[in-house]
């Protein structure tokens, strides 16, 4: 029955995908959303079973690769970690599917969209359910593929196609690291199965080279998939896809696959402190850089995209300092409020008929009240204001970071300030004061239909109360999530040695800082109504750096893209045309030339033939004699 969880979306994908020209839109909606809902129900049942019994569910469907030296089964594992991920994936996917029914209702590629989305859900479920690295890799690749398909959904636009290609290629670069890590793990431990690898790894000393290398390589895969520095430029460009895609793939699920993978491999990561440091550093740098870029972005979705990169950085910081539960907690809450933010942004875009520049928005509060309310809730959550969910998860990570490395904590603190600032900037500029768009858009402003707003409301409620599962002890709650995930992360690396007062001071300072930034944003954008300047105004150098996204795209262009194009051109012009074609044509020319020369033997002169015959006979005789 557990096997049904991924199979249902797969079936839906097949049915819709194979009939996408003829199938009725209603049927598609029911089929797509229904199967995901059923998967959610089954996941919930599996979750309850694991929670109550404490025993993991393991199922092997069939023996996939069965050679003597290497055998991998197609098997699923549901332990607390994957149960949590299952709930998130199926739940949020279901809500987004329902939302998409309304958002994509006017699109002619409706059926195609839902088939791709279901394929994505299937791949993500395989990734989460897999009980060995190879299964996880199947899902890993599958979600990369679906990301490509969905980003380039409106394929008639070349820019979107380029964005899809960029996403896929960067993903693949990371996948190379993942593959190498898998090879190394197999060579060292002789198996790719999680249980086997982790139990064998326990006997290795801390910091052994092979573990450090393997974990670093796996982390490279996570960098590509979860858009960390240096492979993060695909995520903002991926906003070319429809908004539900951005919500599902690039906020809640695919980009969190990297975090999940590292959390799953916790057993080998705690044995490689060097890699953990690397992860933390990469995470915090990413968070900081993305936040600085987000302050100056003027496209709703781009702001949210950089915000995603930044929050992912936070999750990796959590992993890097040993707060595995904290990272998973932040993953959960981030899924809620980031998906909500994207869907709300989609609602805004839908209402404005496609406008995405926030300088042309404003005053939408009275036209889109529900959207405004949910957006507000999500923004407060992401800024880390209690008692919203984001506060608990972000705080847990920061507290652990403080215990590990004060510098990381300081940078994380600064980044959370920036987060609060740019998110509220976005809110105020979009929804408050007066409308700055054209009057024609103003006529068309309307609240989204119920099928779009109900998922928004559900997600808002979750963003509000989702923090319950992780209330730390100092505030009186027992950290339910931590206890739930206890069997997976044998919390050896997670006990804090901070005194309670230190913790309180840290929490208070974070909240205070967030409040100050909110007030600052309010003053700047609400009271003073300062609108971001058009793109052509000259700025100071640092601001220019932020606006130009730290010139990363340009650097990549010069360092990598241009040389590769040159190399490809070289291969084409010289190797392919001249050498290979030359050889192949050369053979043909050689045959023709030889024929032209041998033709002269056909003189038609019998005497010549006879002489040749005699010489040949002589030769044979000589050959036989000697």
């Amino acid at each position, binding site marked *: 029955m557990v096997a049904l969880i991924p199979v249902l979306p797969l079936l839906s994908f097949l049915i819709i995908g194979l009939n996408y020209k003829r199938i009725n839109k209603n049927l598609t909606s029911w089929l797509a959303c229904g199967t995901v809902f059923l998967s959610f129900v089954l996941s919930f049942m599996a979750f309850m079973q694991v929670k109550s019994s404490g025993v993991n569910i393991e199922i092997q469907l069939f023996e996939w690769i069965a050679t003597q030296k290497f055998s991998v089964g197609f098997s699923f594992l549901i332990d607390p970690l994957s149960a949590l991920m299952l709930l998130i994936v199926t739940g949020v996917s279901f809500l987004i599917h329902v939302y998409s029914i309304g958002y994509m209702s006017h699109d002619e590629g409706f059926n195609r969209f839902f088939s791709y989305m279901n394929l994505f859900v299937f791949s993500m479920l395989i990734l989460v359910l897999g009980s060995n690295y190879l299964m996880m890799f199947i899902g890993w690749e599958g979600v990369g593929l679906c990301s490509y398909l969905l980003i380039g959904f409106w394929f008639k636009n070349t820019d979107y196609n380029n964005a899809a290609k960029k996403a896929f290629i960067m993903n693949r670069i990371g996948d190379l690291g993942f593959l190498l890590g898998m090879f190394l793990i197999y060579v060292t431990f002789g198996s790719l199965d999680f249980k086997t690898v982790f139990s064998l790894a326990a006997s290795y000393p801390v910091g052994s080279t092979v573990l450090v290398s393997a974990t670093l390589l796996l982390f490279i895969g996570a960098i590509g998939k979860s858009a960390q520095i240096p492979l993060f430029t695909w995520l903002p460009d991926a906003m070319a896809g429809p908004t539900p895609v951005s919500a599902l793939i690039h906020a809640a699920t695919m980009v969190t696959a990297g975090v999940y993978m590292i959390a799953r491999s916790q057993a080998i990561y705690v044995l490689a402190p060097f890699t953990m440091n690397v992860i933390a550093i990469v995470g915090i740098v990413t968070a900081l850089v993305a936040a600085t870029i987000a302050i100056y972005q003027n496209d709703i979705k781009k702001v949210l995209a950089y915000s995603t990169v930044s929050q992912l950085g936070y999750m990796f910081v959590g992993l890097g300092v040993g707060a595995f539960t904290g990272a998973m907690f932040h993953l959960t809450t981030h899924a809620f409020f980031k998906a909500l933010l994207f869907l709300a942004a989609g609602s805004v875009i839908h209402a404005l008929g496609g406008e995405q520049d926030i300088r042309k928005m404003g005053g939408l509060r009275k036209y889109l009240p529900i959207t405004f309310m949910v957006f507000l809730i999500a923004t407060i959550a992401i800024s880390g204001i209690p008692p919203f969910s984001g506060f608990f998860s972000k705080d847990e990570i920061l507290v652990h970071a403080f215990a590990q490395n004060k510098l990381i904590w300081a940078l994380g603190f600064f980044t959370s300030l920036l987060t609060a600032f740019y998110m509220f900037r976005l809110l105020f500029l979009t929804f408050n004061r007066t409308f700055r768009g054209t009057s024609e858009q103003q006529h068309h402003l309307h609240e989204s239909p119920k099928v779009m707003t109900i998922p928004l409301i559900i997600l808002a409620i979750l963003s509000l109360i989702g923090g319950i599962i992780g209330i730390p002890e100092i505030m009186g709650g027992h950290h339910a999530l931590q206890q739930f995930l206890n069997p997976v992360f044998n919390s050896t690396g997670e006990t804090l040695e901070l005194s309670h007062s230190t913790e309180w001071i840290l929490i208070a300072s974070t909240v205070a800082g967030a409040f100050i930034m909110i007030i600052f944003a309010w003053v700047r954008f609400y009271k003073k109504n300062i609108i971001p300047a058009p793109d052509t105004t000259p700025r100071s150098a640092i601001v220019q750096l932020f606006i130009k996204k730290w010139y990363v795209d340009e650097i990549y262009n010069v360092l990598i893209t241009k040389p590769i194009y040159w190399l490809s051109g070289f291969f084409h012009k010289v190797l392919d045309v001249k050498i290979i074609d030359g050889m192949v044509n050369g053979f043909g020319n050689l045959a023709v030339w030889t024929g032209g020369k041998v033709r002269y033997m056909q003189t038609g002169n019998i*005497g*010549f033939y006879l*002489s040749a015959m*005699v*010489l040949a*006979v*002589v030769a044979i*005789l*000589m050959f036989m*004699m000697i």
Partner: protein
Amino acid sequence: MYYKYFKMEQYIFYSLSTVAVFSALMMVISKKPIHSLLYLLLCFFTLAGHYILLNAQFLAIVHIIVYAGAIMVLFLFTVMLLNLNIKGEMQKPLVARIVAVVAGGLLLVALVGLLKGMDSSTGIMQTDNQIGLMKNISNTLFNEYVLPFEVASVLFLTAMVGAVMLGKDESKV
């Protein structure tokens, strides 16, 4: 007595061979076709002499009748009737002739070289064998080789019909 016969045979053999080779050479070398014809005729006669030396009586007579009597006459007829006795200046290019002679020479060397290492004392033939007598030949011919014999007659028929067909003057039909 025996010794004398041997010497006589060898003497006859060598003289006949000389004449044969000489006439063959002259046939190839001479410029006029009539001369080639006549030299070939001489060669055939010497070959008939060789057959008699081998006591292949039937063969010798048949050789003279068929070759000298029929084939050479046919050639002579063709030459005479078509007036082909021109002193041909047509000669093949020097290269071709040299290559031909070299090729032939090589072949000769090869064939004769095969004899190297063979003991020349073995292979003495007796000249008073009975195998060439007509009785014995016809015995073998009609007992073992009767089918080829019959087929040969068909072959002759074909050749005759072919020659007549080819020689027919088409314009008169």
